């Protein structure tokens, strides 16, 4: 799959932003006034910034409002509803904390649940696709949610929770990679079933439809990413989990915490790039590519 920067930024920062909102909703840290204001500005900047980035990959972004109509069937539409719901509820809850110095606990919990629902619906957009076996696994939503919760803990300064949750998220990521490596072959889709010619003999792509490239090849067949997959996995794991965990284990300082956040975000961006770049769409089979 083509690793489009807009989608990588969107999933990374909205995951972190909604993760932080979820922690704030449950009252961790229990902040009010200006401190709460700063936390909410950071969370909204990431969540809303991510959502805005996602509109850059639309062909007709001016019609984005129509995406709210199909919540009965479409995960993308459900994501739109959850995101707006979470932002509105958390906005009211945040206003209470900042301006009234009061915590409306029920509102916060509802907002936290909606924030997690947003991350879940985002992950389901990818998980539902049978055409991309590496994503079409029940562990995909667990990976997105565990990363979002761990990132939220890190952003909200919950040191002990962040330490444990980062290790959990790292473990889930490792399992996802291992399972994902076997997914395409296990899916049962190959050139024989794609062409229906497998009963005659061994099928080989002889000539593509055009000498040039096309939308399908640009969007779905991205071979370069997989070449360095192992190296990128090591780099992203070190940045996303190992460095933040080491920094958090040291005596607390705001500078070390900032370094941990920067390292984590860079690591998640790297892992998310790989999430797209190494995913293989079955349509590549018609071109003899994966």
């Amino acid at each position, binding site marked *: 799959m083509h690793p489009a920067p807009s989608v990588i930024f969107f999933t990374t920062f909205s995951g972190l932003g909604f993760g932080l909102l979820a922690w704030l909703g449950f009252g961790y840290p229990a902040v009010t006034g200006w401190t709460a204001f700063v936390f909410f500005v950071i969370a909204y900047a990431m969540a809303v910034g991510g959502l805005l980035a996602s509109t850059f990959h639309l*062909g007709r972004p001016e019609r984005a409002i129509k995406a709210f109509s199909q919540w009965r069937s479409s995960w993308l539409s459900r994501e739109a509803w959850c995101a707006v719901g979470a932002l509105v509820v958390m906005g009211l809850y945040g206003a209470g904390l900042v301006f009234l110095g009061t915590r409306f606990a029920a509102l916060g919990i509802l907002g936290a649940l909606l924030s997690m629902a947003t991350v879940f619906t985002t992950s389901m957009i990818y998980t539902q*696709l049978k055409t*991309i076996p590496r994503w079409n696994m029940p562990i995909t939503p667990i990976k997105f949610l565990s990363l979002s919760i761990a990132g939220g803990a890190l952003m909200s300064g919950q040191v002990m929770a962040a330490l444990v949750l980062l290790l959990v998220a790292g473990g889930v990521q490792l399992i996802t990679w291992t399972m994902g490596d076997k997914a395409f072959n296990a899916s049962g889709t190959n050139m024989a079933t794609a062409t229906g010619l497998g009963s*005659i*003999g061994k*099928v080989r792509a*002889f000539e593509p439809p055009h000498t040039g*490239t096309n*939308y399908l090849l640009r969007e*779905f067949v991205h071979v370069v990413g997989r070449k360095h997959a192992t190296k990128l996995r090591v780099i992203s794991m070190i940045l996303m989990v190992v460095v933040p965990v080491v920094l958090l284990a040291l005596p607390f300082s705001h500078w070390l915490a900032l370094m941990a956040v920067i390292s984590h975000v860079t690591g998640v961006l790297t892992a998310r790039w790989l999430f797209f770049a190494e995913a293989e769409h079955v349509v590549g089979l018609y071109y003899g590519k994966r």
Partner: protein
Amino acid sequence: MTTLPTHTEKKLGLVIDLDTCVGCHACVISCKGWNTENYGAPLSDQNAYGADNSGTFLNRVHSFEVQPAGEVAAQLVHFPKSCLHCEDAPCVTVCPTGASYKRVEDGIVLVNESDCIGCGLCAWACPYGARELDQAAGVMKKCTLCVDRIYNENLPEEDRQPACVRTCPSNARHFGDLGDPDSAVSQLVAERGGMDLMPEQATRPVNKYLPPRPKDTLSDAGPEFDVLAPFLAPVAQESKGFLAWLDKTLEKL
């Protein structure tokens, strides 16, 4: 709503004969022509006269080489591919705006271009590569089964079929109601063992592909007899002159 209909009155679709397709790409051109000149956003080309040209097509012809087991010659199979108008179309249910839908009356999968936001998710969901996001219009394009031809009473009756079917010079493409077991296309599918592409993706395609017929081999044809061979026997067996000298000299070395 982008939920799929539980039942369609007809299952209009194509039957593509991989045995007779000669890979001429006439269907590709006629499809691009009709669907550019008529309804909706035209099928644009980018950098059409440059080095890295590409464009939107609703129908593309691949070619595959199939090597049977044993000492048998490989076969070349030309393979036209367009939307299969699946009964369980995964492209329809993922659409967030309702732009993608499957018609109850005939089962055709269509895109309402004025509702499409160009998110591309339907193209991600399609295993066959049948949908392409037009780079100029920013909306998703796909085969309409020439819905603006097949019911068009302004056209002569023989033209009321998809442009690709009408133009195919080898009659490799057939159009009809695959939901009616007595229709000509259904009979053809039954007779020739029509098959689904990627059945394991559980999309239940309406379009069917007819597999290539078994090929005969040279040994089946009996001893080779060439009527022209006696007339084509070489007349000059020995070389003469400089070449003969050169040949002899080199032989001696």
